[in-house]
C-alpha cells in the first residue's frame, strides 16, 4: 500500500519496555521517548495505514500491524505507549491483544475501535477477566481520534 513507507518508523534507541519504576533520572528522560508511540492494529489495511498517517502528522510515532499476533511481535520492539486496535480480527481479536499487551506492560493505554455491534460477548469476557477498555465506534473522525488519545494520556 502506498502509505506504509511513510508511517512505519523505527526509533534510533529503545527504552526498557515495560517501563521500570526504579529507573534513574536519565532513564526516565529516555523513557519519555516512548511517549506518543501508537501501535495501530486493524485487518482493514487501508484503514490502519491512513489512521497511522494521520497520527504521524499529528506528532505521534506510529507502527501498523494487521493482526493480533504480528501486533504482539511488533509491540515487543516498538514499546508503544498506546494501543489503538480494531476488535474483530482473524485469529486473535483486539480485546485478546489488549489483554496480552496490558499483561506485558501494565501502563500501556488501550483504545478499542469497532464498526459493529455484535461484540458485546467479547467485551463481557474481558470484563469477567477484570479488564475494561474504552471503546469508540467506527467511523471516527480523525480529530476526535487524536483528542481521545490525548485524553487517555492525561488520565
Amino acid at each position, binding site marked *: 500500500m*502506498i502509505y506504509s513507507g511513510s508511517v512505519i518508523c523505527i526509533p534510533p534507541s529503545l527504552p526498557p519496555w515495560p517501563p521500570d519504576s526504579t529507573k534513574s533520572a536519565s532513564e526516565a528522560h529516555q523513557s519519555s521517548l516512548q511517549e506518543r508511540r501508537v501501535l495501530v492494529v486493524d*485487518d*482493514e489495511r*487501508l*484503514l490502519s495505514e*491512513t*489512521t497511522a*498517517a*494521520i497520527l504521524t*502528522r499529528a506528532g505521534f510515532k506510529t507502527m501498523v500491524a494487521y493482526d493480533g499476533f504480528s501486533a504482539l511481535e511488533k509491540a515487543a520492539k516498538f514499546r508503544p505507549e498506546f494501543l489503538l486496535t480494531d476488535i*474483530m*480480527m*482473524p*485469529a486473535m*481479536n483486539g480485546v485478546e491483544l489488549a489483554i496480552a499487551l496490558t499483561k506485558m506492560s501494565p501502563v500501556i493505554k488501550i483504545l478499542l*475501535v469497532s*464498526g*459493529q*455491534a*455484535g461484540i458485546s*460477548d467479547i467485551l463481557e469476557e474481558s470484563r469477567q477477566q477484570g479488564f475494561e477498555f474504552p471503546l469508540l*465506534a*467506527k*467511523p*471516527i*473522525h*480523525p*480529530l476526535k481520534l487524536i483528542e481521545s488519545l490525548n485524553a487517555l494520556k492525561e488520565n
Partner: protein
Amino acid sequence: MVESNTASSRQGPDFTDEGMRNFLAAIIASSDDAIVSKDLNGIVSSWNEGARRIFGYAPEEMIGQPILRIIPPELHYEEDFILSKIRSGERIDHFETIRMKKNGERFPISVTISPVKDESETIVGASKIARDISERRRLDESRYRLAAIVDSADDAIISKDLNGIITSWNNGARRLFGYQPEEIVGQSILKLIPDDLRHEEEEILRRLRAGDNIEHYETTRVSKNGDLREVSITISPILNSEGEVIGASKIARDVSNQKKVERLAIEAEKIATTGRMAAAIAHEINNPLASVLNLIFLARQPGLSPQEIQSFLETAESELERVSHIARQTLGYYRDTGSPSEVHLKDLMENVLSVYRSKLLSHSITVDSKFSDLRKIRVRAGEIVQIFSNVICNAIDAMPGGGLLSIRTTRIVRMNGDAIQVVIADQGSGIRREHLDKVFEPFFTTKGNLGTGIGLWVARQLVERHGGQISISSTTDPGSSGTTVTMTFPFRGAEETNVAEAL
C-alpha cells in the same frame, strides 16, 4: 310321565299341570340366576343350582334355614322391609343390594322378589330371583370411568360411522366447535370441515376403511360460528368384535395457540437474523466509511502535491463504491415484500456471503463456491436469504479455527419436477450423532446462551413453505469432521406453497 316327556321332546312343552311343573323345574334348575323361595317368616323353602353357584350353599344347607344367612348383618333390616312388601302383595323389581356368600365374601346383587300365592290367592311366601352383578358393576364402572374421562378431556373426542355421520360428541368437542351434542350427533362430519378441505374427508375415510390410524394430522376445522380452528387430529378405526371397521374415533386438539407461538418464534427469528445481518452489514459499511473519513482528512492537509491529493480522493471514491455495493446487495433484503419473485439462488447466496465476508475472513474460512443454477427460480427472496444466512452462520460458528466452506448449487431432475439443490458443507466440529435428530427441533441448541435454538427449525419451516426439503448430515470423526446441509427448492415451489399453506 314317560309319555309326556316323549311328547315334550317331540312337540315342545306339554301343558298338562305336571308337564308344566316339570318344565318349569327344568328351567329353574338350569338357570344361571339364583332362584329361591321362602315363606313369610323368611325361611328358605327352595334353592336351585344357580343359588348354589352364586352363594356357595348347597340346597340341603339352606332349605329350612332363615334367608338372613345370606344377608350381611348390617342389612338385616332390608328383610323386614322386603317381607312387609311381600305380605302386602307387592313385587320388588331389580333391587340392587349386597349379599354374602358362604365364605363371607360380599358381592353386589340384583334381586327381583314376587309374592307366591296359593290356589286361594293367599300370599304364602316369596320367590326370589337373584343375579350376581359384580361383573356388570365392573363393566359399568369402567364404562362410567371412560365416559368421565372422555367428558372431562380438554380435547374434542368425536366418533363417527363409516358414512361420516357423527355418533358421539364430548364436552371438549362442544367447547372447541360450539355445537351441543343434540345439534350435531346424527349430522355429517363435513359440517366441521371447511369447504376447501372437503377432499380430506374422502382420504380419511379411505384410510380408515383400510384399518389405518391417522396421527397428529394438522389441519383446519370450522366451528359453529364459522371461526377457523387449527387442530391436530388423531383418528383411529373402531372395530366390532369381528374385527370389522364400523366407524372412527377422532381426537382433535386445538393447536391455534401453539401455532401462534410458532409464528411468533418465526417472527422473532427473522428479527434475530436481521439483527445478525445488520451487525455484519454495519461492519462492512463502517470500515470503508472510516477509511473515507481518514482519506478526506489527509487530502485536506496542507503541503500536499496535487498528485497526492488526487490519490487520496481516488482511494476515497473507490471505498465509497464499496459501501454502495454492499448497501445495494444487502439492504435489498429489507425491502423484500414477502411475495415470490424470479431470482437466481446464486445471487442470494452471494449477498449473504458478502454480508459475512469479514466474519469469514476473521475466522480464516475459505469459501469455495460453484453455482450451476442457470435458471431463475420463483421464491420469496427474503426467506431464502434468511435460510442461507442461518446455515452459513452455523458453518462459521462450527469453524472457529478456520477451514473450507463449500457451496454448490445444481439443477436436479426429478420425477415430480425439476429443482435446484443447494449444498453447504463445512469442515467444522460436526454435530454429535445424538444431537443430529434434534437439530430441526425448536429451541434445541448446542451453542449455550449464544444460540437461540430456532435457526435450523425456522430454516426448515421456510424451506418447506417453498415446497422444498432440507436435510443435514454430519460427522465428528477427527480429521474428517464437518456438516453438510442439503436443500432442494423445486421450480414449481411457489405455486405448491399456496396449496401447502391451504392444507
